[in-house]
C-alpha cells in the first residue's frame, strides 16, 4: 500500500486518520451526553439546545471555520486565554483540525444516539429503578449499552464525515503540510497543480479505503453486539 503513494500522501493519510479519530473520540462523550439530555421530555431551552447542536450543519463549513478562526485565533481573547492559561493552541495545529471536524460532525452523532436512546423501552428503565439503580447508574448500565447501535452509527458517520471535511479545516487551521494537511486538503492542493489529477485520484482512493476500513470495523462491532443479544 505504501508502495504506490508518496511519503507526503502517506503523511496526509495519517493526519486524516489522526484528526478523524481524535474528533470522534473527543466529541463522542459529549454527543452521548447531549443526546441523553435532548431525549428527555420537554425542558426549558430544549429547542434552543437542539438548534445549537444543528448549527454546524446549517452553516457552511467555511463559515464554521471562520467562526473558529476569529474566536480561537491566538489574537482572539478566548484563544489567547486558552494559550496563556493552559498552553492549548488549536489554530494551525492538527488538534484544531480535529476540533473543527468534531464540531462539524457533532450533529450526526447526536442525532443517531438520540434516536437510539429514544427507542429504548421506558419499562426497562423503570425496571432498573426498582432494582436500585440511580440516575447515573441507569445511564451507564442500561441506557448507554442499549443505545450502542446509535453510538456506533453516530461514531462511524462522524468518522466518515470527518475524513471528508474540508472547508472548516482549511479555513480554521489552514493547509499546513505535516500538521493540518488532511487527505481532502491534499486533494485540493493536487488539483491546483497542473497535471495533479492523478495524484488527486490516488488520494481519493486512499480516502475511500480508510473510510471502508472504518465501516468494516463498525460493522464487526455491531454484529458482535447483536450476536451476543441473540444468544
Amino acid at each position, binding site marked *: 500500500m505504501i508502495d504506490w503513494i508518496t511519503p507526503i500522501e502517506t503523511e496526509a493519510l495519517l493526519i486524516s486518520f489522526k484528526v478523524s479519530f481524535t474528533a470522534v473520540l473527543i466529541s463522542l462523550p459529549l454527543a452521548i451526553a447531549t443526546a441523553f439530555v435532548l431525549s428527555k421530555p420537554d425542558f426549558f431551552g430544549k429547542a434552543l439546545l437542539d438548534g445549537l447542536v444543528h448549527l454546524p450543519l446549517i452553516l457552511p463549513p467555511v463559515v464554521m471555520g*471562520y467562526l473558529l478562526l476569529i474566536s480561537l485565533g491566538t*489574537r482572539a481573547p478566548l484563544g489567547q486565554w486558552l494559550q496563556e492559561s493552559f498552553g492549548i493552541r488549536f489554530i494551525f495545529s492538527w488538534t484544531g483540525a480535529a476540533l473543527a471536524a468534531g464540531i462539524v460532525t457533532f450533529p450526526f452523532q447526536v442525532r443517531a444516539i438520540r434516536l437510539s436512546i429514544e427507542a429504548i423501552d421506558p419499562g426497562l428503565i423503570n425496571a432498573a429503578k426498582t432494582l436500585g439503580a440511580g440516575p447515573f447508574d441507569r445511564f451507564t448500565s442500561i441506557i448507554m449499552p442499549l443505545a450502542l447501535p446509535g453510538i456506533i452509527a453516530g461514531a462511524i458517520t462522524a468518522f466518515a464525515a470527518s475524513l471528508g471535511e474540508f472547508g472548516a479545516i*482549511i*479555513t480554521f487551521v*489552514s493547509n*499546513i503540510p505535516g500538521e493540518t494537511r488532511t487527505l481532502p486538503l491534499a486533494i485540493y492542493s493536487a488539483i*491546483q497543480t497542473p497535471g*495533479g489529477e492523478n495524484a488527486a485520484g490516488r488520494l481519493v482512493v486512499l480516502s475511500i479505503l480508510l473510510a471502508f476500513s472504518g465501516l468494516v470495523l463498525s460493522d464487526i462491532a455491531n454484529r458482535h453486539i447483536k450476536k451476543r443479544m441473540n444468544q
Partner: protein
Amino acid sequence: EPITLFAAASLTGVVNEATNLFEKETGIKVRLVFASSSTLARQIEAGASADLYFSANIKWMDYLVKAALIKPETLIKTLSNTLVLISPKYLSLDSLATIDTQTLNDILGDSGLLSMGDPDHVPVGIYGKKALKQRGLWEPLHRRIARADNALAALTLVSRGETPLGIVYQTDAIHQPNVDILFGFEPEETQIEYALALTQQTSSDDAKKLLNFLSSARGLALFEKYGFTILKDYQRSQPN
C-alpha cells in the same frame, strides 16, 4: 526551523518547483501553505505564523498592510498574469482578433454560459469583470456567467465542454490541453498583480533569502515558464 510561505492556491505548481530549487541550493526548509488569498490573509490576521505571504490579489495584501501585519518595505510586485478567453477544444473555434457582444453571443448560443471566477470575490473573476466592463461587455453578458469558486473550477467547466466560453488565467490555460485560447486580454486591461512580502512577525533571515530568491532572475524565469508575465519595472512599492 523551516520557514513558512503562505501562497495563493493558484501559485501551487510554480511555487512548489521554485522552493524545491531553493531548498536544494540553500538547504533551508520551506513549508508551503496553499489556500485562497483571502483565507490566508484572514489566517495571518488571526495569528498564523507565516514568514511570507504571496497573494494573487493586491487587495488582500493591502488589507494586511493596513492591519500592520506585513513589512511594507519588503513588498514586491513582481508578477503579473494575463487573462485569456478560452473555449473547449471540441468546438474548434478560430482565435479572435477582437471580441464584441455579437461574437460572444454567437458562440454562447441560446443557453451557453461564460464561466469565470466569481466576480464578487474570486480574484480571477474580479479581474475578468474589470476587463469585460472596460470593453462594454459586462452589461450584456453579466446574466450569462457561471461563477466558479476559483480559477481552476472555471477552467474545468470549459475543459469539460460544459460552457462554450470561459475567462481564466493564461497560466492555467496553457497547461490545459482541452481548451483553445481564443483571445488574450491586454495586461493593462486587468492589471493583475501578485504581491509578495515578509510578514511583520518574521525575523528570519532565511525568509528574506527566499523572498530574494523568488524575485531573482532565476526565480522569475521559472514563473515565466509557467506563463506568468514579469513586470518589467517591478519595484519595491510603497503601500498606497
